[in-house]
């Protein structure tokens, strides 16, 4: 069975600094997708970034980038130049054949 593990319940970062959120997963599938979603307080969950497992190149979206290590089954999110609006819960998600599962989340605090 697929699992997604986020070992950091909470992280803090100073405004304008860089922070990395960790995620590991387990699967026997070779074709799958990985995602980071952001859930601001009392607001809808939205997609931050997505990575296809067959692509070796790490995905980037403006200030957000990932470090995808397929052999190690690791998928971390790096947020550069952190902003106050980045404060939220961040969920790592895995999607494979007919399964779309989420980790337990990391609460990111951004300090002014």
């Amino acid at each position, binding site marked *: 069975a697929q699992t*997604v593990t*986020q070992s950091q319940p909470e992280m803090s970062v100073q405004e304008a600094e860089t922070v990395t959120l960790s995620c590991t997963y387990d699967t026997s599938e070779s*074709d799958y*997708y990985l*995602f980071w*979603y952001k859930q601001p307080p009392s*607001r*809808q*969950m*939205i*997609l931050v970034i*997505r990575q*296809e497992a067959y692509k070796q190149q790490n995905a980037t979206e403006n200030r957000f980038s990932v470090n995808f290590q397929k052999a190690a089954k690791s998928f971390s999110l790096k947020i550069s130049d952190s902003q106050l609006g980045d404060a939220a819960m961040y*969920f790592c*998600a895995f*999607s*494979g*054949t*007919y*399964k*779309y*599962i*989420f*980790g*337990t*989340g990391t609460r990111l605090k951004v300090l002014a």
Partner: protein
Amino acid sequence: EAGVAQSPRYKIIEKRQSVAFWCNPISGHATLYWYQQILGQGPKLLIQFQNNGVVDDSQLPKDRFSAERLKGVDSTLKIQPAKLEDSAVYLCASSLAGGTNTGELFFGEGSRLTVL
């Protein structure tokens, strides 16, 4: 483009009562998901529909939870009878992608259930 609509936003009931949640996905989205998110935890998949057929309901407590998606559009999730541990936010999400789940999920604002 309208997003995923859910109602009600909040519901408070006594244990053993029943409750129903409604979801209207984004137009054209074939896949619809119901997730349960208990405070401080990640979303847990309850049921996934592809059009009006069930793809996965392995984690749905079928003795008390039921869900349907009529005509492959709107969906309702019902709990009867409710237990204290059902207190959670029920998230509806939809996507364009089919069975291989390759796509972005679009979430509604959620329905927060409190069972007293």
